[in-house]
């Protein structure tokens, strides 16, 4: 189910300031391809707004840190915590979570978002689709 044209081209989608740290911008390009652009640790990442599970709008979901469970030395659970060194986006259809730096689900091998090259130049963001 390809949603882009066959000749890749860089498209100016926004000003750099439109995607703040831990923020996102979701844009539709030429009425065919919808891309979510995320910024984490100063870097930009671009993913197709289409979940690997059932095709839901994964980039339009809640942005949240990964939840981890802490154990003590005796392997007893100390409860849950947010890992502030991560940034996830959650598909709002069914909760599939993706690490925005890899596009991968943290626990389901092979479940990942389609990536697009994204660059930041002279205060503009360009995505190649």
């Amino acid at each position, binding site marked *: 189910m390809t949603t882009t044209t066959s000749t890749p081209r860089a498209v100016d989608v926004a000003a750099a300031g439109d995607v703040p740290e831990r923020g996102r911008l979701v844009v*539709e*390009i030429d*009425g065919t391809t919808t891309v979510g652009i995320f910024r984490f640790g100063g870097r930009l990442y671009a993913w197709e707004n289409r979940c690997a599970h059932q095709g839901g709008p994964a980039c*339009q979901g809640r*942005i949240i840190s990964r939840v981890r469970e802490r154990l003590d030395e005796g392997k007893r659970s100390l409860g849950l915590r947010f890992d502030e060194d991560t940034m996830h986006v*959650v598909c709002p*259809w069914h*909760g599939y*979570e993706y690490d925005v730096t890899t596009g991968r689900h943290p626990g389901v091998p092979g479940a990942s978002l389609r990536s697009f090259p994204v660059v930041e130049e002279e205060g503009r963001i360009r995505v190649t689709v």
Partner: protein
Amino acid sequence: MTSVRRLPTQEITTATDTREILANARRDTEFYGLDDYFIVDVDSHHVELDSWPEILGYLDSPVMRDTASQMMRNWPQASHLALHNHPPGLTMQDVSGRIPHQASLGESTPDVGSGAERDVTLVRRAMDAMSIDVQVVFPQPMLETGLHPQPEVATALLQAYNRWFTAEVLPREPRIRTMLGLPFENPDACLATIEEFADTPGVIGFLVTSQRHAGVHRNAYMPVYRELERRGLPIGFHAGPNQADTMTSTMNRFLSAHAMSFVTCNMTHMTNWVVNGIPERFPGLRTIWIESGLAWLPFMMQRLDHEYSMRQSDAPLLTRPPSHYIREMYYTSQPMEWTDDKLLAATLEAIDAENTLMYSSDWPHWDFDVPGRIAALPFVSEHGKRNILGETARKVFSLGG
């Protein structure tokens, strides 16, 4: 000239329009040509608690109506919960806000005058977004009614709900159908419910809400099954969650309790149903198992067949192994546990899915399935897909057309 459009909704929340939440489903419609299929969604939901004061107005008993109105007036937060046994664990379903549509469809519905009108508007939006032609609509927390601590209240609430739904919702949209809940604790009331609503347009069967402790093989229920068989109306068993029974009480996560209890309730009823020979007693009664998924069925077939072969005298009404009866019953597809192609293919083959399985979305629940899920199955024939998406339901429910 390249066009770039910022989506007006950057983050989908409980306030987002259903059509926007489900916009990506249109891609499946175009890719698989779903508009050319007759699609029946045999299990979806509206939020009856949104209309609760209207529904309580349909309570028959003046005493119970007074109790309800006093609760709604005096108890903070009870205006949409009076008399209800809403289990607190249900509010964990949306995975802490990660799946907003499970918590609420709080979108705008301009020019809507009642809860029923709003429900119809929301159902139409979902049907259109998913290319669904007919949608069977059920309530949500009322599916827990079999666990109500006061069975007579549960019976009265079901009667009020059934009257409200048939008077206020069904007449507004012929594409909406339902299987009405039976007040199962009271077999006489079940018969009265069938008598009152069986001929109501849009009522295409009756339902047992599966979270309950009644044995479905009790003699008291035989007149109910006989009457449904006589009228040619299916009986459905709609699963539900329970975080408070002896098994799930050990479980500390919603995932665990939901994964198990949505299945074990129907495993229990199916076991009693088959071992006690209900399909032999009422061979014309079409039986549907709803919202338990599919992965449990090969287990049931193997496990019951194995024990039956050694203990035939425990199930003397059976003339064939249990799996033969299970293969002749009907199933709704959601949540279709598609994590392993081989296991799912074997499951579909085991239950003769091309003739017994009926698509269901379960919208707007957190684990809903779009119709494209069925269209994408690589090991089902085109004929089988058409059956699953709508043609089997057309036969089971005599939808005509």
